[in-house]
């Protein structure tokens, strides 16, 4: 009888434990609760690294470069492809393009994460926290600025009074913001950058924001805003900081292959390490396919014939180094009607075919920002001098250089500057913006898959499609957003 009772007790015990056991507050292994994630300065540093890493995402880097570059005339779409950024190249935008949607999404994720840190830090708590706050202010400004360039009309049109993008500086979750004007966004960006300049004291390398990085972006923002004086002031601040120098011609020619820390010219880049290799999904893969194996990338966007013609005016121009012309058995290869001029500006960092750390700001731009602003202010000599500085670094000399009295048929000093910007910043996402904000049309008089008239394609700066549609998903969810016409 005794054993019988014991068994009964065991049974009851088993039943009870099986109902009451089991603490179910399981935590994930690769995450922390958001209540503890920003506790110490070290936590904030880690979260700030996390914010930089959001730039590395394909949704940021790749789309930033393609959505800005492909509407220009430096590259040519050689045939049909599946990347919907191509709709930007052919000016056949649709509201539901995934590159604009994903770029928008990634930008606001970054903005939200920077807001968490910016709200968390009071000014003057410590130099380290000030620096981190400044870095996050820089990132927030950069994110807003890059958005407004894609979705808001160029600043000079309507003097910034066209709809831009929503400014987001709070943490409200249930929020359906409407669009601020282009001017409001520019002013917000400038305010953030000025604050960042005042907070940042560390001279971190070009992988991170620092005072000079914010000043360099200010130079660009002021230039785009037609505030030529400030564009020059901030370019000079960066130049005169003496933290940067133009790479010599030999280094310049191989700059894509260098780790960014060893390029003296880079002010800010989006650092990709080996483990950030996006391989066939990287922007380098879209432009380049290693001719030795023809297997590393898509290689479907080439340097346009127009760009090559310009470059070929000076065969010794060092910027030929960024083009790999594809021959098989000595025969120039074509895809459709497009000669295969592979662009290698985003390839071979640390010997990996599609690895690159795209440069966002570099010293050459400071000179050419100054040059453009000076040209507009009528300081022709100053403008030409800065253009020649860049040309000399490209290995050009003598008659290849300009003088105020010899513009080699370019018509105006501004045209000279813009052409130099085209050559220098090709494939870096500047070209179509440079045209439209200067009220110039885009003209493609070369073959390629753009529009229906392949040899005579023209987009006026007032064209609706100079900007992208607001992503259809956002329009569907947020009733306060208005669509671009």
């Amino acid at each position, binding site marked *: 009888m005794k054993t019988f009772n014991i068994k009964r007790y065991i049974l009851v015990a088993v039943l009870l434990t099986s109902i009451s056991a089991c603490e179910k507050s399981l935590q994930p292994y690769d995450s922390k609760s958001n209540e503890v994630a920003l506790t110490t300065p070290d936590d904030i540093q880690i*979260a700030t690294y996390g*914010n930089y890493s959001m730039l590395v995402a394909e949704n940021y880097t790749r789309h930033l470069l393609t959505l800005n570059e492909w509407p220009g005339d430096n590259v040519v779409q050689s045939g049909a492809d599946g990347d919907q950024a191509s709709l930007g190249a052919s000016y056949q935008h649709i509201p539901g393009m995934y590159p604009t949607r994903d770029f928008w999404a990634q930008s606001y994720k970054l903005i939200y994460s920077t807001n968490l840190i910016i709200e968390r830090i009071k000014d003057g708590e410590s130099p380290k926290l000030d620096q981190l706050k400044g870095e996050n202010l820089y990132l927030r400004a950069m994110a807003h600025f890059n958005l407004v360039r894609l979705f808001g009309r160029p600043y000079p049109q309507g003097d910034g009074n066209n709809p831009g993008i929503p400014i987001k500086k709070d943490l409200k979750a249930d929020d359906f913001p409407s669009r601020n004007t282009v001017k409001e966004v520019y002013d917000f960006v400038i305010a953030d950058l000025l604050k960042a300049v005042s907070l940042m004291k560390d001279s971190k390398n070009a992988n991170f924001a620092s005072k000079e990085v914010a000043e360099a972006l200010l130079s660009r923002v002021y230039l785009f805003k037609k505030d030529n004086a400030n564009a020059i002031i901030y370019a000079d601040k960066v130049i005169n900081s003496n933290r940067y120098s133009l790479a010599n011609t030999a280094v310049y020619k191989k700059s894509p292959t260098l780790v960014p820390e060893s390029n003296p010219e880079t002010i800010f880049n989006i650092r990709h390490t080996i483990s950030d290799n996006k391989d066939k999904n990287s922007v380098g893969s879209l432009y380049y396919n290693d001719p030795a194996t023809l297997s590393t990338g898509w290689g479907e966007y080439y340097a346009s014939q127009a760009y090559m013609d310009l470059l070929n005016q000076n065969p010794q121009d060092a910027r030929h180094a960024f083009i790999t012309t594809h021959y098989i058995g000595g025969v120039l*290869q074509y895809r459709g009607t497009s000669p295969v001029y592979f662009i290698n500006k985003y390839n071979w960092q640390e010997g990996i075919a599609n690895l690159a750390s795209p440069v966002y700001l570099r010293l050459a731009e400071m000179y050419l920002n100054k040059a453009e602003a000076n040209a507009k202010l009528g300081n022709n000599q100053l403008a030409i001098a800065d253009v020649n500085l860049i040309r000399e670094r490209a290995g050009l000399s003598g008659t290849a250089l300009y003088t105020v009295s010899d513009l080699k048929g370019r018509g105006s000093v501004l045209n000279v500057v813009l052409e130099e910007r085209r050559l220098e910043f090709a494939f870096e996402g500047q070209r179509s913006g440079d045209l439209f904000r200067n009220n110039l049309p885009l003209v493609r008089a070369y073959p390629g898959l753009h529009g229906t008239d392949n040899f005579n394609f023209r987009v006026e700066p007032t064209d609706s499609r100079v900007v992208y549609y607001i992503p259809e998903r956002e329009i569907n969810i947020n009733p306060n957003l208005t669509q671009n016409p």
Partner: protein
Amino acid sequence: MNFNSKVMPPARPKLSQILLAMKLTTILILAALSTVSASSYSQMITLHKRNISVGEVLRLIEKQTNYHFLYDRRDISRAGVINVDVGNVSVEVALDKCFKDQPLTYKIFQNTIVIKSREYFKEETLLKDLIVKGVVTDNKGETLPGVSVKLKGTTVGATTDSEGRYTLNVPDNNSILVFTYIGYITQEISINGSNSINVRLLEDTKSLEEVVVVGYSSKQLSQLSSSVVVVSGAKLNDVTSDDVTGLLQGKAAGVIVSNSSGDPNAGSNIIIRGSSSINAGAGPLYVVDGIIGGNAIPKDVESVTILKDAAATGLYGSRAANGVVIITTKTGKAGKTRIDFSSTTGFNTANTGNFRVMNSQQLYDYTKSFYPTDRFDKEIPASVVSQNTNWHDLAFRTGLNQNYGMAVSGGSEKTQFYVAGSYYNEEGTLKFNSNERYNMRTNITHTINDKFKLNVKFNARFNNQEFDPAGLDGALYGSYNNMPWDNPYNQDGSINRGTDGKWYGREQENFLHGWQYNINERQGTGLDGDINLDYSIIPNLSFASYNRVGYTNSRNELFNDIRSKAGKGLGRLNNGSNNGLSLITSNRLRYGKSFGKHTFDALAVGEIEKNHTSFNTVLGEGLAPGLHVINTASRILSATGGISENAFSKGLVQLDYNYDNRYFAVGSFINESSSRFGANNRSANFYTLGTSWILSNENFMKDRSKIDLLKIRASYGLTGNANIGNYQSLGLYSFATQYDSNSGSFPSQMANNDLAWEKAESWNLGLDVGMFNRISLNLDIYDKTTQGLLLNVEQPYTTGFGSVIKNVGSIQNRGLEINLTTDNLKGKFKWETNFNMAFNRSKVLVLEKGKDIRQGDLIISEGEELYTWNMRKWVGVDPANGDPLWERVSTDPNGNRIVTTTNSYSLATQQNVGSANPNFTGGMSNSFTYKGFSLFAFFNFVSGNLVYHSSRALFDSDGAYYTYNSMVLADGWNRWEKPGDIATHPKPVFGGSKNSNRTSSRFLEDGSYVRLRNVTFSYQLPSDFVNKFHIGNAKFFVSGDNLLTLTKFSGMDPEVVLGPGGGTSSIKYPISRKVLFGINIGL
């Protein structure tokens, strides 16, 4: 053979008699098995003792012989001390002398001797000479060992030996013998003076079919108050497949199974009674052999029970909102050891349906029609048509399908076993794609004693899967899109890489080239061990403990050789491994009591479960040709890894009541908690109620003999759903990132401490009718309303998050299910038909703030059917200029809706354009039998759903993708050529015809189809014939799967995943046509 329980407990005489009888039966079985060894012992006794107790004498006899004694201590103690003086005598002589003056007598059963008071054996002493012998066989004439033969009204009995023979002493000529055997109908036979009685027992097929496993218990089908469907193992195994879920297609009303790919490694999708959930998984809960989770291959399945309504699924409460699929594996039966061998071999071919891509000439003519004329001849010389590559034929093959299995089963009354091993190998119709599987199952049931029963199950499986290794875009993609103008071979016969210039197709990839070098495979191992213990505490009260450890492990490898294009000039290797461990224990107390016409059953269950998974991957590059281990990689590009866990616990009680087999009621209450929910709502309560009434058991129905069964059922219940990812309620910073080699973190998830169980409230009304012994009809109507829908609510990205999972909204599923089985012809020529059909309507009742939720091109909006397509509406082609036209909807200042057409895709309006849900689904089977021949045909059908044929954007692109091959226009389609043409397809334009191939209702097609899923013709050899070869039965068959599909769908195959995330047909791997030959042999 040591018999230790010599001492019987001092129980009441009646009980001890029963126990003795049971032991005697056992002894007889043991004796029957040991006849040979017993005779070899010396059994002579020598004893010279005075004043010795009887007990001591017995002990000494045991020492000298191998006899054992069985007695009640009280009987022995009644005997006094005795004197013994015998030399070299038999045990009978010795015992007769010992017991001469004692109130004791004995009986010898082989080498066990039972000692009892003289009165006890008195009734038997008279009949020592009346002996009945005989043989027991089954209806096929095979002998049955282990059959219990008892004298009616007594405990006296015997058990048949291995040859089916029995011998029994009977008291008189009028005795009645009772033959009982599990699974057979009990027979009573009066001996009528005969001393030889041979018996043929009939299988009790009725009782076998009627008992249904419904989760925590088994019940007679007729006693259920809930809606369940049972699919027997035999019915399940018609189509040849490795996947139990896939085999359920069309076999049960209201169970929608879609096998959307012909890849033998692709799983199937199952939805029971519509999608009651949107984001939480819509799949049912699987329960194998009485406990949540587990695995079984089709061959080992005894039956599948699908629980559909709340009364049935209730006990799985929280996890059962989408139905429960209960799989019961086979067990051994006491008696002769059975050996079953089966072998199936056949061929798989790809089904191309209505789909054709262009040949060289067609593509040339089509391309010429839109290519810039000044460029065409230069870029596409007329000579291209001299090459006409059929990439589909190069990618696909006739695959071999093999399935072999052997199962050995049997056992004794105490221990039964089922041991099975099988091998399955299906080659996909796409080359280098296969699924090979080895499976081993052992199920053992052992009755330890009358209180304890042990059940041990072990399932081990090893999978070797091979996936297309072509690399980059893959062979399937190439088979659709590669151009017929491109020659896969060089002039010397070697394989072209596609990158050597003069290649017209966009991808510059020849999958034949990558196939030479690359590897893409996965090996998986899975082990499940179950230990179940049943303990009968006291009569009517029992305890059961079910416990399982499940372990899975897999390793996958993707190797792109340096020589292949995907190797990117360096060679690449991606290795991944996954581990999963799940532990579950389920402990149950059950109490059953009958008095008068009332029967009660009560059940209490406590259950806990923990699941743990982990993974690791590593990607390396720089490998020498042909070497594919990570050690040889010159550089590691990336490494990832993670761990994920969840836990559940549950307690429930259920009460079941039955009055006179006429009225039934069942009710249960369940409490469950899960780690997946917010701290505020971790646990939840659920309950169910069910009732039914068998009218045909009422007296007023008894004389209506044409009606075999008439039953009505009603059930109501609240069930839950926890099928969301782990950790979803937490506000999180993820640390799975880095910048410039510094570890980073980012906000990855919004907190929702209120995240709670999704609950479904459902009603079910059912009617079961059986008539004329020929017709069986089941009708069910139901209404399932889901509250607190777990939904990924889209956020504007400006909030920093794309979506957050919340409990919002409510959806309703209503439906009707019909299941009709008719025996159209009986007798020599038999014809049986089964037909099932289900109608389900899903309606979205409420959403958070009434806001639509978009999932790709499907929209969930209040008042609409769940899964409504929302996209731009295609209105056709402008006859004037061949432009594509869409609908534009706007409102004028007076609020009137204005509908116009536009050729601007961007200006067209997104709107609801139809449903992805079918109007009805179902299946029909017919079987014809004549003598040993049988013919079986099974159709399934789906009707009324719109399928989005997304890949037409590539191969029906009106010139946008001119570097891909194009599809040949389907019947009834035509292309605009000149003004005035009324056409389905716009004017083709080089580079694209005004975005005509962008997402719109243009590519929505009717997904209805009827498919002949299986035809099987089989022949069972006559048993007289096969018995000559000592074979029990032998059957040959030839079977065809998916031989015919009727559909208007323009692609290869109309079948798509129905339900969440489904409805789209892309670059499709069509399901295979199979012709298989098989043989089943039973020994």
